[in-house]
């Protein structure tokens, strides 16, 4: 098994600084966040430009070239509801450090994102949901099968579909947490990859609690077979946990300075 893939989530138009930078095409705030995340140990960077209905193509092209140009073709996850923007981003994307990730398809309205990924030899994040949160793991598995079959029909390598179990918020859905973890095990037992917005579990908790809860969740999820997560890599406790779990899982060779690598 390879190392757990940390996808840095901090280039997101929901942040006022990033939204402003995207509106004015000002590279500085975006590159600053890219740098922080890479130094903290992110492998991929998610680039969320929002719906970007009017200028998505131009914006994603610019963002991909700006970030990859500044950081040795760092691999990116392209995240927007504008499919033409994703396609344009992949058009200028340099694959030397890894395939682009399309973020994301689901088994409902967004199933076409799988076709988009297949047509462009990209990895696709596939949410095991259709409309809203699946009621149980049987429902999740139905969606997974739909997405997997479609991906295979399109000629995708199954390893290029990263299934998202949908992490749920503990404050409100505490009784569903073990379902999510059990579903990760189901994905893993089929030899498939998985990822997701892991820190959703701690949404609404006090700021000092979130790194603790996220670290516990990532350790339990990695035990269950999670192969990636979309997280804030600048969370030191979380990254230390990921690196330590990678050692215990024999994903990465131990050295006394493993936390500094």
């Amino acid at each position: 098994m390879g190392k757990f893939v940390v996808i840095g989530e901090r280039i997101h138009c929901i942040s006022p600084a990033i939204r402003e930078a995207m509106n004015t095409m000002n590279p500085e705030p975006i590159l600053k966040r890219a740098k922080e995340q890479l130094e903290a140990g992110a492998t991929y960077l998610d680039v969320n430009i929002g719906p970007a209905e009017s200028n998505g193509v131009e914006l994603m092209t610019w963002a991909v070239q700006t970030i990859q140009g500044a950081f040795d073709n760092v691999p990116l996850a392209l995240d927007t509801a504008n499919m033409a923007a994703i396609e344009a981003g992949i058009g200028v994307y340099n694959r030397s450090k890894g395939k682009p990730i399309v973020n994301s398809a689901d088994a409902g309205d967004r199933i076409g994102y799988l076709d988009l990924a297949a047509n462009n030899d990209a990895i696709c994040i596939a949410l095991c949901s259709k409309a809203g949160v699946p009621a149980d793991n049987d429902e999740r598995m139905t969606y997974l099968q739909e997405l997997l079959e479609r991906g295979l029909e399109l000629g995708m390598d199954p390893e290029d579909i990263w299934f998202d179990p949908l992490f749920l918020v503990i404050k409100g859905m505490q009784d569903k947490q073990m379902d999510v973890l059990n579903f990760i095990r189901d994905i893993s037992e089929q030899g498939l990859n998985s990822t997701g917005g892991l820190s959703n579990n701690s949404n609404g908790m006090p700021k000092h609690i979130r790194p603790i809860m996220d670290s516990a969740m990532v350790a339990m999820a990695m035990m269950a077979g999670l192969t990636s997560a979309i997280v804030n890599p600048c969370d030191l406790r979380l990254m230390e946990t990921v690196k330590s779990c990678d050692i215990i899982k024999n994903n990465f060779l131990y050295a006394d300075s493993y936390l500094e690598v």
Partner: protein
Amino acid sequence: MPFTDKPQVFSASINALSFGPAGKEVTLGGSNVYPLYSFDAPLANPVRVGIQVSDKGFDATVPGLAAFYEGCSTVAEMAARAAAAPGVDFVALSLNSADPNEDNASVDDCAATALAVAQAIDKPLAIMGCKNVEKDSELFVKIADVLRGQNALFLSCREEDYKTIGASVVLAGGSSLGGESAVDINLAKQLNVLLSQLGVPTGKIVMNLGTAAAGYGFEYLASTIDRVKDAALKQNDGMLQMPVVTPCGDDAWGVKEAILEEADMPEWGSREERGIQMEIITAAACIASGSDAVILRHPESVKTISEYVSALM
């Protein structure tokens, strides 16, 4: 279903490291497939073969060596002869005379020898110490200074002396450096991390993962090299992508098969032939495991291994 050939080509690769003076460099490593897997992708560089010359002279009880070095009166002359032997890619000078428990030769004398050797050969030079940690530190600091511009390869620094040697050999001297770990994969990685944190570029580092003669605990070495290559390529571990250099000669010539005289063990036949066989078998096994360079003593072994490497390319 038709068979689809899927070559196992990795997006990671072993670092390519060149050493030797300008125009005469030799390059180690560089491939992005498992060792010798030329059917998956062309190998970037062949395994390189070094010939070891000791500053204490050759083993005169080995007739072939005595004949080969006949007429040489200095270490530099021996090195020049060795460098010209068939199949030699580089010369490895071992400064055994510096050992404080034996001749305890001075640092200045050893540095003078190293310089004379560098000037006498037209091949890249690797410097091996005397295996005494404190003395090697002093030796390498001085020799790195004397050999400035020669782009030599120093074998090796250890956990105890990596700071002094890393700073003098690479940062000040511009040479390349081996990190030595005695068949300890975690230490091998840790040394590379420590050297990197010191500011030594990863492209200036090779790994001496330890040695063992075939049949003498060799499986520990083989499995260590296997795991290092696996982590380097499959897990893209940048702290294990350094080329592996394995000095085989001392171990191969140090086991009973290569030591016992024919008079003591007549049924085993010629001692020299046995020594060469041990050296060839050990080196071939190291290469199969993943060594990017081997260092051997006997010119006959060097020639054989060099032909073997060419045949496998």
